[in-house]
């Protein structure tokens, strides 16, 4: 909704600013995630949701009361929550007999579900169970996806896209090298997806690039893929549409060679020498009648000679 669309006008500057912060923008805000506890959850799911929340923290909302929703049957309540908390990523956790320890990762476009993927938790190790130093809140993680499935199988590729979206955090122009402390490693192997979270230890290697050692940090999951709901192709395409203003304009007639030298091509018109202003002298003055005489323009001097 743009400002003009709103029939009810915001009454205060503050509310106006608030509404503006939620409007679509050229460069968007960081995507927020809502982490929703379902109507029935097991202890595993509850703890897992909490752990994911702690990984995601400044950009996440945790709905910790019971929310009886079934994302794959009825998406209205998710859409409502999304609108309410202005979140476009969600993680829904539930537990029932048919699908025990269930996670639904998904994302929204324009407050409607774009795609979601259901994952069953086979094994879960919580943050608390692993006794080691954890990362400070809001650390931007390194993300690594391993396994050919993430490239070849459509659902896995989409899952990769969702997980990148979910965990990548804010886009930054620069990053402190010593602050690269956390890595999330997803491995697709043997029909399962292993999510491991490690702390990165930068060790001296003797050269500039450090040697890496990893220390398990938690939470770690073994997932299996269950139901999926993928966006239709054209919706997916519209969601990926880039605003024209953000696309770099290509400059015409400018090129660079391998050494970085800039080349330009100039287009010059042929100069009309007849109209060239030469030295101003009384003897060279143009006379009105003379100039328009004859087919080809004659210089004033010649015309005088005639």
């Amino acid at each position, binding site marked *: 909704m743009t400002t003009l669309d709103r029939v009810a006008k915001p009454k205060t500057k503050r509310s106006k600013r608030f509404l503006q912060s939620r409007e679509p923008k050229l460069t968007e805000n960081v995507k927020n995630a809502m982490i929703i506890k379902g109507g029935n959850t097991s202890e595993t799911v509850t703890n897992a949701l909490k752990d994911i929340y702690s990984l995601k923290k400044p950009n996440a909302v945790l709905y910790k009361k019971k929310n009886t929703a079934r994302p794959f049957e009825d998406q209205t309540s998710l859409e409502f929550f999304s609108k309410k908390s202005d979140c476009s990523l969600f993680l829904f956790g539930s537990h029932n007999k048919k699908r025990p320890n269930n996670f639904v990762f998904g994302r929204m476009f324009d407050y409607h579900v774009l795609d979601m993927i259901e994952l069953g938790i086979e094994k879960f190790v919580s943050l608390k169970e692993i006794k080691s130093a954890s990362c400070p809140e809001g650390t931007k993680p390194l993300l690594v996806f391993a396994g050919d499935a993430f490239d070849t199988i459509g659902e896995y590729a989409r899952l990769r896209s969702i997980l990148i979206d979910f965990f990548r955090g804010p*886009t930054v122009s620069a990053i402190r090298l010593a602050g690269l402390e956390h890595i999330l490693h997803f491995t697709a192997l043997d029909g399962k997806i292993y999510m491991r979270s490690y702390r*990165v230890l930068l060790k001296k290697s003797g050269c500039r690039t450090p040697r890496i050692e990893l220390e398990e940090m938690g939470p770690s999951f073994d997932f299996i893929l269950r139901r999926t709901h993928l966006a239709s192709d054209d919706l997916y395409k519209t969601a990926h549409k880039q605003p024209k203003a953000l696309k770099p304009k290509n400059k015409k007639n400018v090129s660079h060679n391998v050494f970085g030298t800039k080349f330009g091509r100039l287009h010059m018109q042929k100069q009309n020498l007849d109209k060239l202003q030469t030295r101003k002298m009384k003897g060279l003055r143009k006379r009105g009648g003379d100039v328009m005489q004859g087919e080809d323009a004659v210089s004033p001097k010649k015309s005088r000679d005639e």
Partner: protein
Amino acid sequence: MAPSSSIEEVLAKAERDEAEKLQSIRVEKELELEFDVGNLLALDKNAPDLRDFRAQKKEDFLRSLARDNAQLLINEIWKVPTDRLDGVVVAKLPDPVTRLPREKPVPKPKPPTKWEEFAKLKGIQKRKKTNLVWDDVHKEWRRRWGYKRAKDDTKDWVIEVPETSDPNEDQFAKRIQAKKERVAKNELNRLRNIARAHKLQLPGAGLAPTGQPSRSELAKAEQVAKLSTASVGRFQERLPKEKAPKNTGKRRKFQPNIGDFSTEKQKQLDLLKIMDGKKPRLDVTKAVNKQMREEDMENASRQRKGAGKKGRKGHFTGKGKGKGAGAAAGGKNRKPRKGLGKR
């Protein structure tokens, strides 16, 4: 001889040292990883070795895989140009390459208001007004608008009554009223602009009376008024020179009771021909429905056999009660002149 060999030795040693150092950060992979340094992201397309995975402890295998991949990613990140900011080394990340969907659609340009369109047509440009203006009464600079504004006409304690106006009229109330009306008009225009932007019918088009209704409008209004009686205008008399209304809906027409016998005869004969014919007439819809129902039944029975005891017992809804079919036409309680409904 000796010094030259020593130089070679030193060089060789240096080379070896270098190689050893690199050894600690080098990782061999069959396929190169795909990096997106802007997102601190890597994709390892190599299929993990299942045999290794089963032979080793699962956690150790995953950790060593993760270490290798992390090392490669870190190597890549360490290649980007760095900068020093407030004593810490930061790497300038390139723009992310991985395309991810947007959160909300691309913002559309705001549709111009009626005034903006007009201003563009006339080439009127916005001019910024200063915030402060000189107030002659208070001898100071004051805001142009809002609280404590210059030339505030709501703060006047006396107003001169214009000669032309009624002396008993309250000039203060008049001013307040005028202001209220301006605000209301502005709001109305805002709403009209919104409606225009959405290509809705403008508010006020049906409500506000137009200044001079045209002849056709008047005629239409008159017709509508005439039909707006309990008997749908049946007993309304015509005005002396009034013409019959045009385009007033269709009425059902019946065959005349007496007259064209040949067509009637033909119709009856056709009917008899159908009834007498040996070839049964095929009702396509009915046949298709029957066929579909049979197929459904078959499917259901096959499924029941396949699923064994599981699943629900077959509930087959029949035809339904056939409510509302063929009850519409005719009937005693028909209104007069049905189908004339212009109300």
